[in-house]
């Protein structure tokens, strides 16, 4: 937003004020995340910057909370590291299976929903997206009663199904978005060259919508990976995940190990975010749109 040369002094003042306002908003967005990272290297068991940290004294920084979380290093004396590793394993297993399930059936549904012949498109779409809108506490309460009745509560399978259910809307949304403006003639071209519908799907449609599928899958993954409430209602100690351990840690006595976990999670989300951004650009290139 370069300032045109004819801008008057008042316009100039306003322009810079506006930029400052935007700066403040971006600061509010980013600061809370950024402040946690240096604090996780705090040598003291406090949640604030010690004087040593402000003086950039190397002794005020340490990796003790990371050692604590990862269960390595000397003198932690607790099995907390073991606990976090157990939760991390659970989180990853549950998220992977939930993602696979959500992505498979979500993609199929998105392909169906994008066909112009799809009957009752609007109400079905509304129903399929609703897990995203219905308050999580209601979903959790409903699943708690029903899954207890059918014997799915307190099992990995139950949690995977629950997480897959709230992950599917993301897959449906992202894949239908990639299918917008999909060139139907490609399907006919493929058929006229003798390909069966299944072959057409795997050779023509799938490569084109892969970016959408992968970004939907990443959304589903992070949704499961970050989910607390369903686990809180549907799982017991065997299905403990990282978020539920953070949750109980935050509700009881908070230890700075949580900041170390938080920093690791931030690194993880940055990685995923970059992956998504690259995929988005690739998708737009593939569909012949400009890189913007």
């Amino acid at each position, binding site marked *: 937003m370069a300032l045109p040369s004819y801008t008057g002094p008042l316009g100039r003042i306003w322009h810079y004020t506006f930029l400052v306002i935007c700066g403040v908003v971006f600061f509010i967005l980013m600061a*809370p995340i950024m402040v946690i990272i240096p604090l996780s290297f705090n040598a003291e068991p406090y949640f604030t910057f010690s004087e040593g940290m402000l003086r950039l004294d190397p002794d005020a920084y340490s990796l003790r909370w990371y050692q604590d979380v990862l269960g390595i290093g000397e003198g932690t004396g607790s099995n907390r590291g073991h606990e976090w590793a157990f939760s991390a394993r659970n989180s990853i297993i549950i998220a992977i299976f939930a993602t696979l399930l959500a992505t498979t059936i979500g993609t199929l*549904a998105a392909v*169906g929903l994008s066909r112009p012949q*799809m009957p009752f498109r609007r109400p079905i779409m509304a129903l399929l997206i609703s897990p995203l809108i219905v308050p*999580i506490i209601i979903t959790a309460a409903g699943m708690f009663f029903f899954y207890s009745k059918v014997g799915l509560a307190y099992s990995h399978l139950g949690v995977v199904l629950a997480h897959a259910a709230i992950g599917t809307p993301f897959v449906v949304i992202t894949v239908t978005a990639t299918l917008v403006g999909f060139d139907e003639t490609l399907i006919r071209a493929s058929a006229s060259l003798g390909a069966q519908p299944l072959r057409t799907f795997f050779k023509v449609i799938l490569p084109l919508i892969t970016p959408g599928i992968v970004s939907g899958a990443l959304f589903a993954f992070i949704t499961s990976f970050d989910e607390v409430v369903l686990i809180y209602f549907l799982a017991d100690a065997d299905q403990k995940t990282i978020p539920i351990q953070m949750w109980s840690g935050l509700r009881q006595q908070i230890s700075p190990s949580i900041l170390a976990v*938080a920093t690791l999670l931030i690194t993880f989300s940055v990685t995923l975010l970059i992956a998504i951004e690259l995929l988005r650009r690739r998708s737009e290139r593939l569909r012949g749109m400009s890189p913007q």
Partner: protein
Amino acid sequence: MNTQAVAAQGVIMIDGVPLKEQLARAERKKKITAFMLVVPLLAFIIFTFVIPIGNMLTRSVDNPRMTNQMPSLIDDLLLWDGKELPGEDMYAKLFQDIQWNIENGTIGRIATHVNYRMPGARSMIVKSKRKLKKIKGPPYKEQMIEAEPRWGELHTWRILQQVSDPLTSSYFLNAIDKDYDIDGNVVAQPEEKQIYVTLFIRTLWISALVTLLTLILGYPIAYLISTTPPRISNLLIIMVLLPFWTSLLVRTTSWIVLLQTQGVLNDIMVWIGLIADDGRIQMIYNLNGTLVAMTQILLPFMVLPMYSVMKTIPLSQLRASQSLGATPFRTFFRIFWPQSIPGIGAGGLLVFVLSVGYYITPALVGGSSGQMISNQIAFHMRSSLNWGLAAALGTIMLVGVLVLYWLYDRIVGIDNMKLG
């Protein structure tokens, strides 16, 4: 065949089937294929999501206890006209059911259940349990009344009938701070128990405030992103998306770290001498904590829809307006603002819907004044185990959310929901 005949019968294909019919058949097949692709997900969502929620909602009116615990009496009791004391026949069934419950050790449950409506009923039932043991045979009516005079009161039987109705509206009444009195009239709950209406209003109020705050904070940056060249705006979008991708718990933790009394913000203010060390401000574990954290967490949901609308507004219009002599303010309010309103609607509705159901953030940073309706539902689910009330509160909230969702679909269209 002349053209008139063709027009009348349609084109006949080589296999003798009219073209029109073949086309219809092909269309139908395509329709079925499309639908079959959606079926797995549809079935999955119905089984894992819709049925559980529907099932839970029935608990808000469901009252199965007496039907299950009074198997002999229940049918007669529900048909009883309530005008005069029932006859020997019903007393015999009542006696039989009470004995059955004593044997099964479930009499306490009935006592508690009746006691909800009729204070003192618990001790009445538990006491008569001992006295009833002496009764060996008919006539039950006289002996029971002798053992416990209240069994001979019309009022007792009316209450019994009321609490035996397999459908109850009392959870919904409780959810709006009302209850039945002893005579079955709807009255307001005692003052100290009137919490839910206030809580619903507070939930709406917090959601509205969060929506407004995200709008005020989000509008300028959405404007900035949509008007800067792509090189910079891509970077800015990533800055909006990063919080969106960061774990909700991580962001809530950050706010605890920043705002608590021994936290970073208070430290800074003490350090620069704005406040005294003993005058640290309580900025979290109250309504303020909920508002601040929710605003930051939901800001991306406001910015992204606004941005996707704003980037379609041609900047040449703004230049045209200015070149025609309009001041920048006039240009903004006459050209840009009206065209950005759909984005505000989309973002605002989304943020409002999402904040109505917020649970984790208020639970962690809300203290007692920053609690919302979800927290109360969780409390009744996990701690007080008053599942009927939890279901009633949930039903009210769900209906509200679904109305907003329907509005969103009408105004914005679900297809236009964008995720980064």
